[in-house]
């Protein structure tokens, strides 16, 4: 089902597939009958969807179709008007504070603009959540921070830079390292490759693919970038006018007869991205 993945950055000796599975908590995220309205403007009209453990789900849709809002509702930053969002089996809005705090430590979020703490250097951006746990000594934290920076290919000499001194690609990578610093099982990515040049965007995709394979992450990502979508996503959920048109693997989604999907995958750009998948039946178009 998964499309061909780019080879991981580093030589892998381990076979990720043989790893003992974590506690099965299927689905990791369950969205039930979700309605969202802002000042009379309806964003979601009764969404139902599930995200399974270990998969990479891509949310696509036109601008204003409520992708980012949905992502923000999944992490509890916004409240749905009706319906519920359950993560790890808990409705965040109703769960007791202690449970919510635990759940928040099990996920990592990569915001669209990185959302690095601008007053802190790179190193402290990563160390902050670890220090907040009050569980580790400073030199242990140091080792963990350097490890995560190494995993996203940020050199040590850049650790004392301020976020404003980083290039766009580095901001994304540092933000990813920060999202990974608490060893999350679930990762939310909002436009992970937006604003990166094709080269950087490709290496970011490679990085994500290798991390995902190695760490057994469940990933929910919002993206506009077809290349990212095709090379990373196991399943795609297509939002249009507040409704879920379809959800499935890329070849499945492409076959759905809908104007938005024709538009999204149909253009020359779309065809080029899809050509990676081989002769997918595009006969419907």
């Amino acid at each position, binding site marked *: 089902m998964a499309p061909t993945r780019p080879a991981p950055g*580093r030589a*892998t*000796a*381990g*076979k*990720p597939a*043989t*790893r*003992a599975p*974590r*506690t099965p*908590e299927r689905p990791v995220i369950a969205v039930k009958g979700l309605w969202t309205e802002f000042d009379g403007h309806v964003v979601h009209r009764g969404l139902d969807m599930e995200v399974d453990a270990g998969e990479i789900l891509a949310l696509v849709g036109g601008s204003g179709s409520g992708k980012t809002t949905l992502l923000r509702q999944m992490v509890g930053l916004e409240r749905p008007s009706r319906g519920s969002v359950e993560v*790890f*089996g808990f409705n965040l809005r109703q769960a007791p504070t202690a*449970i919510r705090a*635990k759940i928040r*430590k*099990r996920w990592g979020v990569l915001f669209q603009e990185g959302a690095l*703490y*601008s*007053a802190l250097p790179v*190193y402290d951006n990563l160390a902050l959540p670890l220090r907040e*746990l009050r*569980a*580790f*000594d400073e030199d*242990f934290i*140091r*080792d*963990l921070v*350097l*490890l*995560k*920076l*190494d*995993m996203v290919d940020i*050199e*040590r*000499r850049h*650790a*004392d830079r*301020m*976020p*404003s001194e980083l290039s766009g690609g580095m901001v994304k990578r540092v933000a990813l390292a920060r999202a990974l610093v*608490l*060893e999350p099982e679930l990762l939310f990515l909002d436009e992970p490759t937006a604003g990166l040049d094709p080269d950087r965007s490709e290496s970011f995709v490679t990085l994500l693919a290798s991390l995902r394979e*190695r*760490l057994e992450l469940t990933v929910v990502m919002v993206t506009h970038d077809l290349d990212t979508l095709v090379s990373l996503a196991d399943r795609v959920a297509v939002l249009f006018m507040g409704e879920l048109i379809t959800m499935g693997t890329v070849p499945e989604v492409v076959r759905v007869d809908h104007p938005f999907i024709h538009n999204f995958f149909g253009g020359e750009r779309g065809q080029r991205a899809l050509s990676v998948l081989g002769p997918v039946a595009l006969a419907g178009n």
Partner: protein
Amino acid sequence: MADSAPTRIHDPEIDADTGADGTRTVRVSGAWDIRALESRARTLASELARFAARDAWDLTGIERLDHVGALLLWRAWERKRPERLRLEPAQELFFENLAHAEGGELAVPRWSLLDPLAALGRRVIGVWGHLLRIIRLAGQVALDGAWVVANPSRGPWRELSATIRRAGAQALPVTALVGFLIGIVLSYLSAEQLRTFGAGIYVINIVGIGIIRELGPVLAAILVAGRSGSAITAQLGVMRVTEELDALRVMGIPAGIRLILPKVVGLAIAVPLLVVWTDAIALIGAMLAARLELDISFTLFMQTLPVAVPTSNLWLGLVKGAVFGALIALTACHFGLRIRPNTESLGAGTTQSVVAAITIVLIVDSMFAIAFSHIGLELRG
């Protein structure tokens, strides 16, 4: 954490036994991930410290592993793989990552005894630099002003009126309140002293000169520095950080004329107006207190005031107001243009701007006091 979800995951454990050949085998089992280790990292680290890389290690009993657990073991092994190590293939990658991250040093800041001296020097040079830049900015504003005089149709009139409204009209309530209270206080205090000498009537001289010449302008300026100075710094700072200033420049819209000139001119107009207003309200407060404390009627106060206080004091106060207003705006713009793109710099820059503006106002005020000591102070009454 004993997870709330029903699981078969066990707590992290360490077992050791010594085999017949004398080698010690360390068996590690249970959950070795951040959530299990969060509460026990320190205990486990000291337990692990009893063993070393030369022992045989068996990690096959580990049910969950992540980088935190792997790092605990890695540190116990003195940052290298033990020679005798049994582990699941899937656990391999954590140690690979750790091995890959080894080496290289962080840049460590060096300290020296001369640092305080160097810091002091930097501060002095910094203050000097600020001063030079403010003067340069003033020059730029003067040139921009001359350009607007030559091209009046393209002047930033809308921005100017917005500044006067925001910094002037909207400051009326707060300046009135502060002026009124200061008027009462000043009048009461002097009344007490003057009554001892039977010179109660001179309260009008003291209060009149004090408020019109000194307190009115300074109070208005300090309030404007706090209200509008900080706002201007924050506004320009955010515009700089979000590259709005660059956007203006590339569109051919001169930021100096659109943003800085109207602020400087606007404050130079608004502050004198505020001075008149503050003077008036403060005098009403003083009049009230004089009547209550010394029985000086409103009529007597009003009749004596023009005689006791030469008009030159009023003009001096207005000129001071205009100068203070322009200086506050210049200082605020200067600090706003130097905000760096991080939240701390914005906060620090705004604070610096207000402190510098108030300091500059007081320094310039004392210069005025010395330079104009012979004007408007001749004794009358």
